[in-house]
């Protein structure tokens, strides 16, 4: 086995250059996060100071207010429930649909695939009014189920296309081997193909999660005080006539909103080991 170019040791000069670039990129990506974290811990006078302040007496007053006196936690929980349910439903439905499209080609496969992706071609704003009217007439306004259903509907098409690509990248013969070994077709897919496309499934799930947490249009129109997710609830900390913008609270909210995604991505990183299927077929 020969070393690929990327695993060849670097010259000392190259190492310094690569290291420098990586430090710069880390600063570029990390600084805003650091600033948000600092802001969440600063007293108001330090936040509102004209010059950037790095040294200050940290305070937990913003954290306290967000977590204990505002309604933020309720909205946060709404977001988490909507996102978790959406990710779960989308992943199950999209994976099975993608499996069918990838493994059982039929005459209408192309048309079905195009029909699915065409659902994403329409801008969501085009259906806001009809969906609002429908939800209103069946008494489903301001309910988590409604937002879950909307997010599922909008995330399924692209997820099917992504997962279908991952499945088509694996060998059908390996599934057939599992069937010969005694698995059912779906069992073979689950035991043999899913472990191979695991990294792809995780990245699709992350994609759906981020999209759902960020979804603002339907969240703001279909939810009231009860089912409101954080995307629509940011207004909580926006300027009002009396108190002005609550920067510290907004920073705490931003950290909390980012946290699940960051944890998810950090866990996923372990699974993104390249080449899990290398060498499975042919030589």
């Amino acid at each position, binding site marked *: 086995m020969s070393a690929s170019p990327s695993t060849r040791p670097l010259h000392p000069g190259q190492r310094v250059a690569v290291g420098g670039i990586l430090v710069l990129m880390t600063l570029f990506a990390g600084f805003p996060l650091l600033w948000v974290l600092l802001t969440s811990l600063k007293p108001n006078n330090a936040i509102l100071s004209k010059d950037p302040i790095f040294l200050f007496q940290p305070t937990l007053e913003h954290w306290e207010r967000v977590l204990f006196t505002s309604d933020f936690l309720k909205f946060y929980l709404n977001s988490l429930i909507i996102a978790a349910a959406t990710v779960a439903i989308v992943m199950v439905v999209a994976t099975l649909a993608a499996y069918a499209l990838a493994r059982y080609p039929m005459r209408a496969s192309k048309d079905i695939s195009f029909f699915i992706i065409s659902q994403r071609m329409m801008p969501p704003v085009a259906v806001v009014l009809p969906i609002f009217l429908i939800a209103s007439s069946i008494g489903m306004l301001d309910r988590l189920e409604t937002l879950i259903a909307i997010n599922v509907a909008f995330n399924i098409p692209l997820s099917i296309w992504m997962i279908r690509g991952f499945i088509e990248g694996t060998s059908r*013969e390996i599934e*057939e081997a*599992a*069937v010969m070994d005694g698995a059912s077709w779906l069992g073979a897919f689950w035991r*043999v193909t899913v472990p191979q496309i695991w990294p792809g499934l995780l990245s699709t799930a992350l994609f759906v999660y981020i999209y759902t947490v960020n979804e603002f249009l339907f969240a703001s129109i279909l939810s009231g005080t009860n089912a409101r997710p954080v995307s629509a609830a940011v207004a909580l900390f926006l300027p009002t006539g009396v108190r002005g913008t609550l920067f510290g609270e907004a920073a705490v909210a931003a950290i909390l909103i980012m946290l699940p995604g960051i944890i998810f991505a950090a866990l996923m990183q372990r699974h993104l080991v390249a080449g899990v299927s290398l060498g*499975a077929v042919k030589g």
Partner: protein
Amino acid sequence: MSAISIRSLHKTYGNVEVLKGIDLDVADGEFVVFVGRSGCGKSTLLRCIAGLETISDGSISIGGEEVTRRPPSKRGIAMVFQSYALYPHLTVRDNLGFSLNLARQPKAQIAQRVARVAGILRIEDLLDRRPAQLSGGQRQRVAIGRAIVREPEAFLFDEPLSNLDADLRVQMRHELMQLHEELSATMIYVTHDQVEAMTMADKIVVLNAGRIEQVGTPLELYSRPRNLFVATFIGSPRMNIVTASAARQAGLSVGAAAERIGIRPEHIAIGPAGSGQFNGTVGLTEHLGADSYYFVELDDGTRVNVRRSDNVMLSRGERVGLAPNPGYLHQFAADGARLD
């Protein structure tokens, strides 16, 4: 008892009929090789026997039991795929034990059977590796091991050696033949490699366009091909075909119904011009060391391949005479069927 019997098997995809009424009997313990050109249906037939393809009509029995509608794993057969199809996320040990795990066999028994198979195939040292860490030959061994561990009634091989390099292919060929002797199990083997077919098979099945052209031992097929297709397909280099009228003109004794005459390259004597029934000019030559092949263009334009095993060299453009051995002429009727 693991004889396989196939009766009037048809397989269609949409409007295309890929298998057109296959009747075949494979005896218990026999090594049968399916050969044919790409697209002749040999792999499809194997997959039908495996149960990976549903058949459109007909029946399949294995070990005396009708299995036509049974799922693959309930047919008592194991299959080795061309691509090996190892489970990439599992170690060799887990690859070998996969079917036993699915069948919920006791752990101790799985370990014992995996160890025994690893011993047979000499892969004990590889048990904790993953497929990606194995060479082509090692992967092939694991794929065969995965089949053996199930102790099936019959083995199906779909061009299992075609991804290996030439040396390894010869070695694995010998190992497979040895394995067949040791296990004395029924084996069906698909290949397009003439040498594999001729050397490994107890019985060769020649397929063409979804039909069986001939079933027989390698030597039967070679010395008494049933029709023009088998005659030109079996044997490398292929049999020479000349028109019967040219043969008659040259003074060969040829039956009245014959349209085409076949003669293998090793059954033609080559000498100076005028020494045989045909005259021609030496064209391309291939020297393989022990043998030389001369492509001679006859005066009527037909190209004939002649094998010579002595050290006399003929040069390009030389005029020669060809004398076919009359005892080895194959005569074919207008429809390609063998006469006599």
